[in-house]
């Protein structure tokens, strides 16, 4: 097992024999979570819109000795989401863990009145529509295990954002979805939680490029003094939430940001 895999699975192979699907797993937080789930023993479906990053992400997991397959999936399309879930079930025999991480570009930083009109609905679709589609398609399988649904939200989805107001809004929407799905699916034994990460990712790099003071301000308010690592810092949170260790946790948002946001 590689050093990174050891870091990503600090409790060992607690997900051995389980099957996970991770959307937006071609890079950033999604890739980190996919790698961590695989290192913990899960067979992982890397579901991304583009093979150009999805296939390499799956290959990297396989190269580390774990199990992964790439499936093309536009999470805003019901047919794609259903097909990806079907592929997971056919390949690996079921679905225990559904992670919806994919996110649409937020555009240039600025107030809501400055957001490009054509960049609003894609952000809504990738966050809320896709959360619905992933939930609906996976429930029939998750309730058989019973499994778990994890949505990736953001500290901005709690405290709001001056520069990314649409992003913050749709991320908050996902928190509402998590709380209500937890109530709806709890009697079925299916747990639903969210992770609100801050990590160094290509998206974060782009945000810093557009707003150079962002990283300095983020680190300055972070007690742990650094941005998170997608695989080593965020991935294990998903592993924990998917594991039996979290069997009594549902409806929660776990903020994994080094302590930067302490408003809950």
């Amino acid at each position: 097992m590689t050093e990174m895999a050891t870091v990503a699975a600090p409790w060992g192979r607690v997900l051995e024999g389980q099957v996970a699907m991770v959307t937006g797993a071609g890079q950033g937080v999604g890739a980190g979570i996919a790698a961590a789930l695989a290192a913990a023993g899960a067979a992982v479906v890397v579901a991304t819109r583009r093979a150009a990053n999805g296939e390499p992400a799956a290959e990297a997991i396989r190269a580390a000795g774990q199990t992964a397959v790439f499936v093309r999936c536009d999470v805003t399309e019901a047919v794609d989401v259903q097909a990806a879930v079907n592929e997971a079930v056919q390949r690996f025999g079921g679905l225990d863990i559904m992670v919806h991480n994919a996110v649409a570009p937020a555009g240039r930083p600025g107030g809501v009145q400055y957001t490009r009109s054509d960049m609003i609905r894609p952000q809504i679709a990738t966050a809320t529509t896709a959360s619905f589609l992933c939930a609906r398609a996976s429930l029939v399988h998750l309730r058989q295990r019973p499994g778990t649904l994890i949505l990736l939200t953001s500290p901005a989805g709690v405290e709001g954002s001056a520069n990314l107001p649409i992003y913050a809004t749709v991320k908050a929407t996902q928190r509402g979805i998590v709380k209500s799905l937890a109530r709806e699916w709890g009697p079925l034994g299916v747990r639903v939680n969210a992770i609100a990460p801050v990590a160094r990712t290509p998206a974060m790099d782009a945000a810093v490029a557009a707003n150079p003071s962002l990283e300095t301000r983020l680190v300055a308010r972070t007690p742990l003094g650094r941005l998170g690592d997608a695989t080593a810092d965020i991935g294990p949170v998903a592993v924990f939430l998917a594991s039996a260790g979290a069997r009594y946790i549902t409806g929660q948002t776990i903020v994994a940001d080094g302590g930067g946001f302490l408003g809950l």
Partner: protein
Amino acid sequence: MTRDVLVVGGGDPAAALASELSGNVVQVAPEAEEVDDGFVDGLLRADGTEVDGLDLVVHALYPQQSRTPAPVEEMTADRWAAACDDPLEAAIRVARGAHRHLADRHGTMVVCVPLVGAAGAANLVALAGLAEGLRVLARSLARSWGSDQIRAHAVTLHPSLFLASEHAEAAVEATALHDPALVRLPSVAEIAAVIDALADGRTTAGLTGASLVMDGGTWMAG
């Protein structure tokens, strides 16, 4: 000076609040998918319009699809869009259209949201998602509009103001451990008085981004 107020939304709580808010109040109840970036401008430019500027926008646009319980696995994509995505986008479009007018008057935007967003509610997943999105939209507007001297707030209300009584009772029973501390829920007039105060620059000019829960002390969200 009389305050010019726009209330966006049909049914309650929008209609009830429109009748109780102070000022020159205009209530509109568009279909969510009809609201575009020019929606607010269109209201102000229309012949016979009752307002020529905006001091306060109260947003409470909740389509019937949002208010009708349904398990997620039984919802179609179209119904999800009508219950969550369309009204969420409509709120964003209203905010975009209102910005310039609120900036002219150093005005206030208030979004009214049901408690099910913060507390969660089975079979009301779309409504809860919409509510939490709107609550944080208000915070984001407060952060980005503060330099324009526009203030923004969210007021969280009891589910009974949004849902049929049997659905509201079920949502409350499943989420609230306590009865209202005040032994009653606030009246619409009391809620309107708080919104009036939030829009009053003499008393609340230093307040923005607030998330007030007016449920009589039932839930006491952190």
